[in-house]
């Protein structure tokens, strides 16, 4: 299984900056999926191919969870902790799961969870807590038995056992919980419609997303201000902020930008160009079709006749893997995080052609704030 990354790379979290070219732009914005290379380090665990990926804005964490498990960090790593595999800074040996944010690396071990401050070089975690891992060892961070861990103090928040939490996704200002029953709950701020209850008000306590009652969900994900979930049948539901088309619904901002781009290109080619006032009027005529905030879940047709297997969100973009091994992306694209070899945003799901062209089957996707990481295996060549 090989991991590929594309999008924001200002801290070399995808690949090292080219030293030859002067083009800062292509260093920072990786528009074409690029294979992740293991670090050129002597530490033995870094030579293994990464097992799982976690990503924040400026970093990427590779989790090696077999044998002597550990976490390796790439990207904005303080100069003195180049050997990031447990020699200095967070001691990750033996961890069972990890989550990374700009401030902290959160690690679970058998029987405890630790939060490390990764902006400083410390030898002990900033905070830790005993957890009872006997009860449910399938829980993934940020869930822990009894509650969940956030990336700001107070770190631990309890959850009612009645909820029967299965997986949890945290956005910039809200939370999306999937229960064992397939029900979905949300809480936090709702001013961008991200709670899915039909309004813009906040919820202090978990509240069931009633529109999805009766339709069991199998997986959930959150972006900065949007929520996504996959139903048991492989359908994708989206709600929240659509300012960059991250819901895959018509976005005025995206259409205007596309028009302006056409405008510039036509101008460059010497073609007759409509006045910007005319174009503006055209876009504004369609105002009622654009969706800026979707406050109730909406079914998104990513691609006809294909089921969605996995989904992940960056702050303002979304990436989904189909059961047939294709990767679709949509939303904010200005750092190349959509992988379509352009810096345009898109309000329609589009397939990342690179994997098809390379005959690779995408099996997993994990988004960082402004980038996307996809795991792929060689497609079995079938006789046609």
């Amino acid at each position, binding site marked *: 299984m090989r991991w590929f990354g594309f999008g924001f790379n200002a*801290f070399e979290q995808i690949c090292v900056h080219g030293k030859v070219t002067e083009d*800062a732009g292509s260093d*920072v914005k990786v528009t074409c999926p690029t294979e992740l290379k293991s670090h050129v380090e002597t530490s033995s665990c870094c030579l293994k191919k990464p097992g799982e990926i976690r990503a924040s804005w400026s970093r990427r964490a590779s989790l090696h969870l077999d044998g002597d498990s550990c976490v390796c960090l790439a990207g*904005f790593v303080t100069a003195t902790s180049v050997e990031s595999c447990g020699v200095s800074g967070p001691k990750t040996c033996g961890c069972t799961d990890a989550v990374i944010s700009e401030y902290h690396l959160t690690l679970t071990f058998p029987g405890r969870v630790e939060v490390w401050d990764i902006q400083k070089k410390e030898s002990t975690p900033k905070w830790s807590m005993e957890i009872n891992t006997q009860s449910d060892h399938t829980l993934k961070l940020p869930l822990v038995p009894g509650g969940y861990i956030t990336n700001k103090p107070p770190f631990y928040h309890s959850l009612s056992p009645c909820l029967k939490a299965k997986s949890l996704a945290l956005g910039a200002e809200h939370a999306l919980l999937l229960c064992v029953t397939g029900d979905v709950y949300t809480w936090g701020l709702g001013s961008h419609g991200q709670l899915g209850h039909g309004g813009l008000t906040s919820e202090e306590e978990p509240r069931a997303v009633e529109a999805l009652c009766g339709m069991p969900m199998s997986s959930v994900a959150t972006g900065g201000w949007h929520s996504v979930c996959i139903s048991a049948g492989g359908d994708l539901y989206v709600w929240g902020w659509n300012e960059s088309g991250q819901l895959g619904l018509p976005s005025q901002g995206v259409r205007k930008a596309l028009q302006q781009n056409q405008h510039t290109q036509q101008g460059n080619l010497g073609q007759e160009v409509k006045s910007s006032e005319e174009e503006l009027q055209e876009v504004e005529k369609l105002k009622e079709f654009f969706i800026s905030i979707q406050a109730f879940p909406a079914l998104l047709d990513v691609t006809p006749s294909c089921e969605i297997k996995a989904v992940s969100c960056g702050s303002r973009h979304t990436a989904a893997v189909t059961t047939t091994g294709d990767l679709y992306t949509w939303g904010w694209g200005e750092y190349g995080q959509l992988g379509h070899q352009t810096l345009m945003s898109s309000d329609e799901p589009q397939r990342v052609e690179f994997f098809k062209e390379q005959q690779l089957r995408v099996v997993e996707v994990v988004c960082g704030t402004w980038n996307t990481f996809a795991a792929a295996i060689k497609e079995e060549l079938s006789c046609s």
Partner: protein
Amino acid sequence: MKTSSSVAQLWPQISAALPASEDQFLLLFSDTVESSVLDLLKRSRRHLYSQTSNSSLSLNAQIVLDYSWEKLNTGTWRDVDKEWRRVYSYGCLFKVAALCRGGPSEDELRQAIRTCDMGLLMGAAIMDNILQVIVGILQSQFKKSCEDGDDQGQPEVKRMKTECPLVPVIREELAVPRVKCPSLESFKTNYLLPLKPVVLEGVIDHWPALNQHPWSIDYLRSVAGCRTVPVEVGSRYTDEEWSQTLLTVDEFIDRFISNEDKAKGLGYLAQHQLFDQIPELKEDIRFPDYCCLGEDDEDHITVNAWFGPGGTVSPLHQDPQQNFLAQVVGSKYIRLYSPEHTDKLYPHQSPLLHNTSQVEVESPDTQRFPEFSKAPYLECVLQPGDVLFIPVQHWHYIRSLELSFSITKRAETE
């Protein structure tokens, strides 16, 4: 891309406003700002003081802007840490530098002015309010290049539609009392302390805005045409269709004042601290002393501009502070209800709108709101030169009868 010789003077002027060397350019932030972001700010600073290409400076500036923009949109505006607004301003500063360093075209100049305005509107003051200083430099430059004939703007619509506003007849028994130049004592005794509304006449006759520099569309274009301001679009803020957008003053006037197209809806430059953003306009107004009674802290005063076509409506609402509404251009119909009658005014239940009445004052739904017609009120038509005193928590409804420019002054209670 047309450049005139005066553009060559631009970067030296901006450079002079910046710290002389990289060492003197301080980047100090609290722990809220992650070290990764600080790293990018330092990279930008390095690009600014070295001979690197503008594209690197521009790229880093954009990253800082995009990241801080996300922070500014997280949580409620009130809870946004001021540090992120400062970071946003630094991003604007670096972006402006990248635009102006290489002899900017007219379009780049416009972008730079817009960027300064975004920093002034959404950011927080940095380096002795350097963005304000720079936008002043840019505006002078912009005016020069317009005079040079670079401007391809449309010819001014000299004759505006002459408006004959339908002025509501004010019945004497319902009229807000009018007083000409009262003494401070009598104003305090008869109106301020007993919380009684009054229209003060003759108290702003001295304003340059009414005399030496009579405010007009042309004057506003010349002073602020290229500046970006927030505009409310839609009939009233309680409507579903209501939204806010950012336009230059020229665009606002073109779209919502000069060529009034009802299909585009109403646009209102409302509740905006225009005089902080464009200090030149501040010289044209000076609130009389009535407006300072009972206030000892200058810092908590908010002066807002309200500029729009006829037909703009502020729905019936109340504010926790007292207000002085000065009319400069055009006329407004205003109705006032005392807070003792709040129970007949049907305020919205939601926390967001609990200070706003559900009733459409000039065409009330008597079935849904039967008590409303029983609530006594005072009304007036405010003309240029009038100043209306609105006591604290007094409900007020305002409709512009024609092109109108008003200014309000109130004291924050926080």
